[in-house]
């Protein structure tokens, strides 16, 4: 696929999402807005997993850091949603740098375990300080603290959410599209392909991995902050293991084209999960089944197979 075709494919889904907005029913707007936020998270995860080959199982912590950073700021500091958004992104960046410093020094399964433990630590902290964070039950934010509040004289809640999510998604897609074409993006892929070789060319791969992890954290934290500021809710459930596992599935289902794969994968999995929501714990079931199917099919899906093998350190 040449550069122009890739660019057209990259922006085609956001363009379709923009075009169909006027004719969407309320529930579809609500659902797609949420999927678009999760897609931003998926893009963040793809930078870490798909570009750099680091299989993290702790990205829920980065999502939650953005969510708590924004949500708690509106509760304890100021109800200004834009400042809260920045605070959420800053919190996610700080947490991803700390987590990245711990985890990117090691590779393969050790990175996976380290990130998993770091995320579980944040989850337990959120539960422990129940009176501040609201624990598993969470806290509902004031309406004036949400991003939809300033637009309320002109737009309904679902319209505001949809438009905010769409704009953020377009920014996220553009960022990944630009990254994939840049020298930095090529270096990230080179780290995944052969870190030792890149090191032998004089590059500091530890710094590259940390940078990629932090960038991934900014994306994840932005999604978390938007989740809080568009839906007026923060809760420890978002820091749980399921929220770390889901993006693995989205990326694997989305396929090898990083510019569009995370969005496609996230939409497909969530649409299927939504259709199955009537079943007992349908969402969890779909994610679990999806991962099992991917694991069984991995030998045939050469791209997913290679990515998983590299990320888990089974091959150099």
């Amino acid at each position: 696929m040449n550069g122009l075709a890739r660019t057209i494919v990259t922006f085609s889904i956001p363009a379709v999402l923009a075009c169909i907005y006027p004719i969407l029913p309320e529930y579809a707007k609500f659902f797609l807005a949420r999927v678009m936020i999760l897609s931003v998270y998926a893009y963040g995860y793809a930078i870490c997993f798909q570009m750099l080959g680091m299989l993290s199982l702790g990205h829920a912590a980065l999502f939650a850091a953005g969510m708590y950073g924004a949500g708690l700021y509106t509760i304890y500091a100021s109800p200004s949603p834009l400042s809260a958004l920045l605070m959420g992104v800053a919190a996610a960046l700080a947490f991803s740098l700390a987590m990245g410093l711990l985890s990117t020094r090691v590779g393969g399964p050790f990175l996976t375990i380290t990130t998993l433990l770091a995320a579980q630590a944040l989850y337990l902290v959120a539960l422990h300080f129940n009176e501040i964070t609201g624990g598993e039950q969470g806290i509902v934010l004031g309406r004036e603290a949400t991003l939809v509040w300033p637009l309320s004289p002109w737009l309904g809640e679902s319209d505001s959410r949809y438009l905010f999510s769409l704009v953020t998604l377009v920014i996220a897609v553009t960022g990944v599209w630009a990254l994939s074409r840049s020298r930095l993006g090529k270096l990230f892929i080179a780290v995944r392909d052969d870190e030792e070789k890149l090191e032998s060319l004089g590059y500091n791969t530890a710094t590259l991995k940390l940078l990629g992890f932090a960038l991934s954290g900014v994306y994840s934290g932005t999604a978390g902050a938007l989740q809080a500021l568009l839906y007026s809710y923060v809760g420890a459930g978002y820091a749980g293991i399921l929220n770390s596992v889901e993006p693995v599935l989205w990326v694997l289902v989305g396929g090898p084209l990083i510019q569009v794969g995370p969005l496609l994968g996230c939409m497909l999995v969530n649409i299927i999960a939504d259709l199955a929501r009537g079943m007992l714990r349908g969402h969890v079931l779909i994610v679990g089944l999806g991962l099992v199917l991917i694991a069984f099919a991995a030998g045939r899906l050469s791209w997913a197979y290679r990515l998983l093998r590299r990320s888990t350190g089974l091959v150099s």
Partner: protein
Amino acid sequence: MSPSQILSLRGVSKFFGGVQAVLDVYLDVLEGEMLGLIGPNGAGKSTLAKLILGSLKPSTGKVFFGGRDITGLSRRERAGLGIAGTNQFPRVFSSLTLRENLEISLKSGGGKHLFESVAEVAELLGLSGLLEAQASSLSHGQRRLLEIGMALVSGSRLLVLDEPSQGLTGGEVERLASILTGLSSKRLSVILIDHRVDFVKSLSGRVGVMSKGRMVALGPAGDKGVADVIEEVYLRGLDAGD
């Protein structure tokens, strides 16, 4: 160290447990020279290459580059000073195109710039038509040439080529020989390690012979003494030091 020496090994040894891979090697490489290194399998040539590149640290002895003690430096730090190398099995970034592989390598090292553009080195390698091809789709020989190209554009002052002719076709070996001959005008120092004795002798000014971890002979490629040691080592399987 004299001003024209770029690399100097002083009593370098490497032990793996009780196994002596390299033993008490003294070696000087001059600026702009091509030094050949030959020896049978297990002679310690590749281990010596790794000790120079920084992939391994010597058990004893010192490595100097440009007069500076680099014994404790990592491979990345040595690359930054201008020491580049290729591996026994070519290692390139398989998800990237040939152009992207060269662009990443371009001037990543700390040495002089031998080539100003990716196109220039691709032409030298005879790979101009494959610039947009993904590295994973290249043949073994093309990957080998690409890895050499990556080392050439990385701003290196010393190039360590470990078995560069391995797995190449006759035509590709000829192209490699022509590329290496062309480097003599670039004042780049090259250590050429290969199992093809004639290939190494035809390209190198001096040849070192290794056997059982020792440097058993070192001298001009056409020197009779060196030729005799080569014969001893290869044909009779003897350690010339015995």
